């Protein structure tokens, strides 16, 4: 029975299947043609468009497959035929696996193997991508299709879902007085899509059997809209709650136990690196101890509270107005032990004017993540071409301006989330400053599914200042001997620290107009 239904659907949808298969193969082909350096640039846009067309095409095919035998209403002919509902569902699922994921697997494996990755690894990653997409994309689309009669109705339903979720998120923004969601633009931003995926998966696995077994459309729609209304929930959650979950998910929480942060007044303000900064910014001298070697501590968020002599809270807020990966406080060390740095804290002008001259008690709550080095490799700086376990297939070349080395890597699965890159010349031991490229993602399971099973990452490594303001130890004249050193870091522990400075006058640590600080190593 399943085979008969499959063949019937195939006869109706083979053209759509063929178009989707061609689009998937074109997607893989385009990304392969772009290579690690993703050139030419114009083709990147085309490849990105095609990658979204693949998702759109898959959604259309899934919907069309389900709606070949519409589930809502009472006039469909198949309802009065001796067709087993379970067989119908199985036939649809098998059809989607074969027609959507078959070409997807072939395209992913072809792309991976053509890029020089081992067949076994490529198949594993391609399968993982397919399973992941099947659970968080196919099933929810399937569920919406099972609740609608036509493609237009399904599209309208998806649009309505998007609209309701957007309103929910906007309501969250209003509740927070316009502030963005608490863990947006942090390593914890995986939580929102993960929550949505979980919600979509749970709703779909409830709706699909309900529709196929009982055709209980009203109940199934109630489940769908219940899930949609729950979707913006995380927009209302707090940082503390989310970070508690993240701490619980730490791969190795104990490793961060020795780490402590202390106020270090002996560290002179003059030691701060010259970085332009604004008025109302304080450079707080700190000492971070207990670090293991080859470690990075990322400040996910820090909240400072200033308490006056009378015990009244004068100010409470984040230490930086930036939404980013804690650019005020990235601590990196290759030797381990102790690191001293100036933490840049920006206060609103009104607050700063109020507190700069008076002694206050400062309390800072840090939410921190410890990264440990996971892999290190080097590649020739000029026209390098190499394959590495951690970084994938990488290539280098000098950019058109002649001031940067362009590094591009293609890897099966997810890209490394935090990489430090430095240009070095082993023949004379010179080394340019290390630059971190971090897009932390603290998801316990890092699954990559877009634009295909391969991920792409890259960086521009400066060796020459076109304005002639800075001089690099390894400059253009040494590129033939130079190499790019890459280190990949993985998050191992999420932890909190509470720093109390009983008596401080912030004006003593103010940054002037020309001096600011990020860190000292």
């Amino acid at each position, binding site marked *: *029975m399943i085979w*008969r239904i499959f063949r*019937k659907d195939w*006869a*109706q949808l083979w053209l759509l299947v063929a178009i989707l298969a061609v689009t998937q193969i074109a997607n893989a082909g385009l990304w392969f043609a772009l290579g690690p350096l993703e050139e030419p640039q114009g083709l990147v846009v085309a490849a990105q468009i095609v990658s979204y067309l693949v998702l759109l095409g898959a959604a259309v095919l899934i919907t069309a497959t389900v709606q*070949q*035998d*519409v589930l809502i*209403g*009472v*006039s*469909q*002919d198949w*309802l*009065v*035929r*001796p*067709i*087993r509902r379970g067989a119908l569902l199985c036939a649809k699922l098998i059809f989607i696996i074969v027609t959507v994921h078959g070409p997807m697997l072939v395209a992913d494996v072809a792309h991976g193997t053509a890029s020089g990755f081992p067949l076994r690894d490529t198949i594993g990653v391609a399968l993982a991508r397919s399973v992941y997409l099947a659970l968080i994309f196919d099933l929810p689309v399937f569920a919406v299709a099972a609740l609608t009669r036509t493609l237009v109705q399904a599209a309208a339903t998806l649009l309505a879902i998007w609209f309701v979720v957007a309103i929910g998120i906007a309501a969250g923004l209003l509740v927070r007085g316009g502030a963005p969601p608490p863990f947006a633009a942090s390593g914890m931003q995986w939580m929102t899509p993960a929550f949505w995926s979980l919600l979509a998966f749970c709703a779909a696995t409830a709706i699909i059997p309900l529709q196929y077994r009982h055709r209980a459309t009203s109940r199934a729609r109630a489940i769908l809209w219940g899930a949609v209304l729950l979707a913006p929930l995380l927009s209302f959650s707090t940082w503390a709650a989310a970070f508690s979950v993240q701490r619980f998910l730490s791969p190795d929480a104990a490793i961060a136990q020795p780490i402590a942060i202390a106020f270090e007044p002996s560290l002179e303000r003059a030691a701060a690196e010259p970085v332009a900064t604004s008025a109302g910014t304080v450079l707080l001298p700190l000492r971070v101890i207990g670090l293991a070697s080859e470690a990075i501590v990322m400040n996910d968020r820090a909240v400072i509270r200033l308490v006056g002599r009378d015990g009244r809270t004068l100010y409470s807020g984040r230490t930086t107005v930036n939404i980013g990966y804690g650019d005020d406080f990235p601590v990196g060390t290759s030797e381990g032990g102790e690191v001293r740095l100036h933490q840049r804290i920006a206060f609103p002008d009104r607050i700063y004017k109020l507190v700069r001259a008076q002694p206050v008690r400062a309390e800072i709550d840090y939410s921190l993540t410890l990264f440990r080095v996971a892999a290190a490799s080097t590649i020739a700086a000029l026209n390098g071409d190499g394959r590495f376990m951690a970084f994938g297939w990488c290539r280098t070349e000098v950019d058109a301006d002649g001031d940067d080395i362009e590094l591009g890597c293609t890897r099966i699965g997810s890209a490394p989330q935090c990489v430090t890159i430095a240009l070095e010349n082993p023949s004379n031991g010179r080394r340019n400053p290390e630059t971190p490229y971090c897009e932390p993602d603290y998801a316990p399971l890092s699954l990559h599914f877009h634009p295909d099973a391969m991920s792409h990452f890259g960086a521009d490594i400066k060796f020459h200042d076109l304005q002639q303001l800075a001089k690099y130890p390894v400059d253009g004249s040494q590129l033939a001997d130079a190499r790019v050193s890459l280190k990949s870091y993985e998050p191992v522990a999420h932890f909190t620290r509470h720093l109390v400075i009983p008596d401080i006058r912030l004006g003593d640590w103010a940054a002037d107009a020309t001096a600011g600080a990020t860190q000292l190593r």
Partner: protein
Amino acid sequence: MIVHLDNIWKKYGRFDALRGLSFSVPEGSVFALFGANGAGKTTTIKMLMNLIGPTTGHATVLGVNTRALSLKELAQIGYVSENQDMPGRMTVAGYIDYLRPFYPTWDRALEADLLGMLRLPPDRRIKDLSHGMRLKMALACALPFRPKLLVLDEPLSGLDALVRDEFMEGLMLEAGKMTVLISSHELAEIEEITTHVAFLDRGALLFQEEKADLKARVRAVQVTLESEACVPAMAPQQWLDIRAKGNVLSFMDIQYSEGNLAARLAAVVGVVRHVEARPVALRSVYTTLARAVRDEGVQK
């Protein structure tokens, strides 16, 4: 009984589509369910096919609760409806090829006879068929497996005379070998093949009866009087649609009996010159009864 309904209610919000409906369809009969638009015929049939569930009450088809119809029962029920959505992109032949293996009793020779008789173009897509063609297509998909029960929901609605004839011809090919439950508000076309009738009005059953008994007890009576006729003030309840014109009184007697008509006439209208009692078409029976029920209620 091949179909049995027991006190079925179906509510849509505050609207009662079916109100305590009970009737039975004997095996081998051609059972016609008559009623005006909105009387509840389609709701009844969709409930029997388990396309919708009753709010309360109990119904069985082929001895099985309609809510528990299995593949075994569905393989013995043919269904044709004016609102039947078949896969529009499939061709006539393609869809029949698809359906054939689902029915163990499918008869390919009968299929070929039907396709020829109904003049269905095998290569045409279903969505390109006219309304009449689609109904014939539905019949062509409902008969080849020789169902025990054929359910037809308004099968003649909107068909022109030629297509109607072709449809009925196709139906007659197998009629007599199965039980047929047919709903219609077009009585004239199916009167000839009907053995049992049930009349529905606003979700309730007016009555259910064998057609022969019904036709025997219902007569259009025309009485010629000696003097000017007038509508009697105290006419028996069984006299419906009483009209007086000149010295002629006419009415429909729903409990006609040749033996006692003269006595009843004498008691009500006095001296009678001539009486003529003619059999009545089902359509007239239905419209007269429905009008009477609507106006005041009548003993059936």
